[in-house]
C-alpha cells in the first residue's frame, strides 16, 4: 500500500487506499453484460465480422481442400512417372523418336516399366461408314503398348484393354473423352468403329488420365495392328517411363532420358514429369480467391464499424451504470477495460461464428466434391485473431469515452 504523504497529521490511522485490480474472471463477466442483456443487438452487430471471417475461412479452406485432394491424387498415382515426347528439330519440324528408344530406355537402371504410344497420322474414326467424313470429333488414333494404362496413370472403366492377342487384330480401346465424343458409354459385344475402310472392334473404355490427358481423346490400337491395317510407321511419339519409387532415382533417370531416347539428337526430345506440373497447380491460387478474400476484408471492415457503432450507443445508454460503477469504486481504467473487453468479446463471438460458418461451407463443398476437409490453421487462427484486433480497435474509442465520463455527469444526467 502506498501512503500519500502530506495528509493532515491530526487524523492518523487512515492510510490512502489503493484501488484493487479486477480479476480476469470478473472482467469477463463484466464484458458479457452487454451481450447477455441485448442478445439480438449483439448478434446483429457481430454479423458483419461473422460474414467476413466466414468468407476468409471458406476461401482458404476450399483452396486448401482442393489442393489437398490434388496432392492426394498425385500421391496415389505416384510421382515416378516420366514422359518422353518427340520435340522439334532445329528447323522447326516435328522430330521423330527412334523406334529403338523404348528398348534403350528400358536398359537404364531404376526403370521399372516403359510403355509408349505412337500417333497414327491421317486417320479419322467414325461410329459408322455413314457418318460424314468431316465429323472427325477431333479424335486421334494412337498405337499403344499393352501395359500403357498402369504406366500412364489410368485404368479401365469398362471392358478389357489390349493384350498380346488383340494388339494384332483390328481391335480398339477408347480414351474417356473419345468414348464420350463418339456417344459410347457402354461396351457391348460386337460394338465397332470405322477407320480408313476398316471396322475395329471395341473392347474397353479407359478412365480419365490425370497425368496424360492426351490419352483421353485417343483411340488406342495395338502397334502390330496399326502397322498392318493403318500403314503406321512404328515410331513412338510418346514414351511413358516408370522408375523405382525413389525421388533420387526418378531425378537421375530424368536427367539421362534425353540421351538414352535419342543419342544423336538429345535436344530433340522433350522429357517431363507430369506430377511436377500438377503440384504447381495445387499450389496455385485461383483468381476468384483474391476476389473473395477482398470481399471478406470489406465485410470485416463493415463489421468493425458496426461494433464501434453499437459500442458508442451502449456507452450512451449505460451512463448511469458507468456512474454507479465509478461510485462503487471503479477506476477510469476499469471502466475502459470493461467496455474494451465487451467490444472484443462481441467481435470474437462474431469471429467464432464465422469460423464455424466458413468450416461448414467448406465441409459441404468438400463433401460434394469428395475432397478431404482441410482448414489451414492460419485460416481459423487468423480469423479469430483478426476478430480480436478488430474488436479492440472498434471498442477503443467508445471505451475511452466511457472512462472519460465524470461520475456526476454519468449519474445525474439522463
Amino acid at each position: 500500500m502506498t501512503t500519500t504523504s502530506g495528509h493532515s497529521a491530526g487524523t492518523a490511522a487512515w492510510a490512502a487506499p489503493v484501488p484493487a485490480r479486477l480479476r480476469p474472471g470478473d472482467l469477463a463477466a463484466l464484458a458479457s453484460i452487454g451481450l447477455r442483456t441485448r442478445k439480438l443487438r449483439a448478434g446483429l452487430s457481430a454479423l458483419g465480422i461473422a460474414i467476413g471471417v466466414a468468407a476468409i475461412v471458406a476461401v482458404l479452406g476450399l483452396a486448401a481442400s482442393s489442393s489437398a485432394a490434388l496432392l492426394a491424387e498425385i500421391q496415389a498415382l505416384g510421382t515416378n512417372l516420366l514422359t518422353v515426347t518427340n520435340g522439334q528439330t532445329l528447323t522447326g519440324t516435328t522430330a521423330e523418336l527412334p523406334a529403338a528408344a523404348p528398348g534403350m530406355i528400358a536398359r537404364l537402371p531404376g526403370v521399372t516399366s516403359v510403355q509408349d504410344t505412337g500417333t497414327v497420322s491421317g486417320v479419322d474414326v467414325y461410329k459408322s461408314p455413314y457418318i460424314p467424313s468431316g465429323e472427325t470429333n477431333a479424335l486421334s488414333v494412337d498405337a499403344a503398348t499393352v501395359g500403357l494404362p498402369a504406366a500412364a496413370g489410368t485404368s479401365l472403366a469398362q471392358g478389357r484393354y489390349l493384350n498380346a492377342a488383340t494388339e494384332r487384330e483390328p481391335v480398339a480401346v477408347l480414351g474417356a473423352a473419345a468414348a464420350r465424343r463418339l456417344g459410347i458409354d457402354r461396351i457391348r459385344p460386337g460394338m465397332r468403329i470405322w477407320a480408313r475402310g476398316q471396322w475395329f472392334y471395341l473392347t474397353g473404355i479407359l478412365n480419365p488420365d490425370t497425368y496424360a490427358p492426351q490419352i483421353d481423346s485417343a483411340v488406342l490400337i495395338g502397334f502390330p495392328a496399326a502397322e498392318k491395317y493403318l500403314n503406321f510407321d512404328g515410331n513412338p511419339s510418346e514414351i511413358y517411363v516408370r522408375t523405382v519409387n525413389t525421388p533420387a532415382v526418378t531425378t537421375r533417370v530424368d536427367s539421362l532420358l534425353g540421351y538414352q531416347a535419342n543419342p544423336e539428337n538429345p535436344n530433340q526430345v522433350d522429357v517431363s514429369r507430369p506430377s511436377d506440373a500438377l503440384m504447381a497447380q495445387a499450389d496455385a491460387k485461383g483468381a476468384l480467391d483474391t476476389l473473395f478474400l477482398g470481399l471478406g476484408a470489406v465485410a470485416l471492415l463493415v463489421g468493425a464499424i458496426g461494433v464501434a457503432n453499437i459500442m458508442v450507443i451502449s456507452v450512451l445508454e449505460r451512463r448511469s451504470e458507468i456512474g454507479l460503477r465509478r461510485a462503487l469504486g471503479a477506476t477510469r481504467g476499469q471502466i475502459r477495460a470493461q467496455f474494451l473487453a465487451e467490444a472484443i468479446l462481441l467481435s470474437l463471438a462474431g469471429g467464432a461464428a464465422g469460423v464455424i460458418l466458413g468450416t461448414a461451407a467448406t465441409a459441404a463443398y468438400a463433401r460434394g466434391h469428395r475432397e478431404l476437409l482441410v482448414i489451414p490453421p492460419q485460416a481459423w487462427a487468423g480469423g479469430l485473431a483478426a476478430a480480436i484486433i478488430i474488436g479492440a480497435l472498434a471498442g477503443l474509442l467508445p471505451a475511452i469515452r466511457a472512462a472519460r465520463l465524470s461520475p456526476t455527469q454519468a449519474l445525474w444526467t439522463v
Partner: protein
Amino acid sequence: MTAAQAAGDLGGRPAGTVPVLELENVSKVYPGQPPVRALDRVSLAVTAGELAAVAGPSGSGKSTLLHLMGTLDQPTAGTVRITGLDVARMTDRELAGLRAARIGFVFQQFFLGEHQSVLGNVADGLLYAGIRRGQRRRLAADALGRVGLRHRAAARPTQLSGGERQRVAIARAIAGRPPVVLADEPTGNLDSATGTAILALLEELNAAGTTVIIITHDHAVAARTRRRIEMLDGHIITDTAAGTGTAVGGGFRHVQEGT
C-alpha cells in the same frame, strides 16, 4: 486494502471526535454564462458515528455537497478530507480505491442491474474492492441479512417492490462495511410508510457504528435525525451540531475562516 480489511478498521478507527468527513471553506463553481456558484465557502465536519441529514430546496447546493463528500467531484476551492485524506492530493485511482473501501452510496433511483439477481447486485458493491467472487457473495448474503432481505437473494430486482429495491441498494452500499454511507434522497421514490422503514434501517446502521449522511429535500425526513444541516443558495444556514438547533454564523453564513 481490501474491503474486508476496511471492515476490520471499524473497531480500530479513531475515536468519535475525529472527523471522518471534513469540508473547509469549500466552494464549487460550475462554469457557464453566468457561472453558477453552487457552494460558497462551506465548512462542515462530520465525526465518526454521526447520523446527519442535509436538507434544502433544489438548487440549494445539497447535491453538489454530496458529490464532493463522495469524491465524485472536486471542489473549485477549499479542502475536502475523507477519513483524514485530502481529496485534492489524491489521484483518480486512489479516489476510486477510497470510494471502494470507505464510502457506500445509496441513490434515489436505486441503480440496480436487471441482468443479475439481488445477490449479484449486492456483491457488485464489492467488485472493485479486490475481493474474490465467493467471498463477495458471502459478504453480500450477510449484508442482505442485515437489511432483512436474505430470502429474496435469488430474485431479480424487477420482482421487488420499491422499498425492497432500496433495501437491496443499501445492502450493496454496506456490504463492505464502509465507515461512511451517503444516501441521496433515499426515500424520494418511495411512499411515506416505506420511506419511514428505510430511514429506520439507516438509523439501525448508524446505531451499529456507521456514519450516515442523508441528503433530502423533505424536512420531515431531516427532522428524524439527530443532526440537521439546512442549506440555501450554496450556504449552510442551520447546523444543529452547534447544539442549539438555531442558525449559526450570523444567520446565513456558516463559520468563515481564513478567507
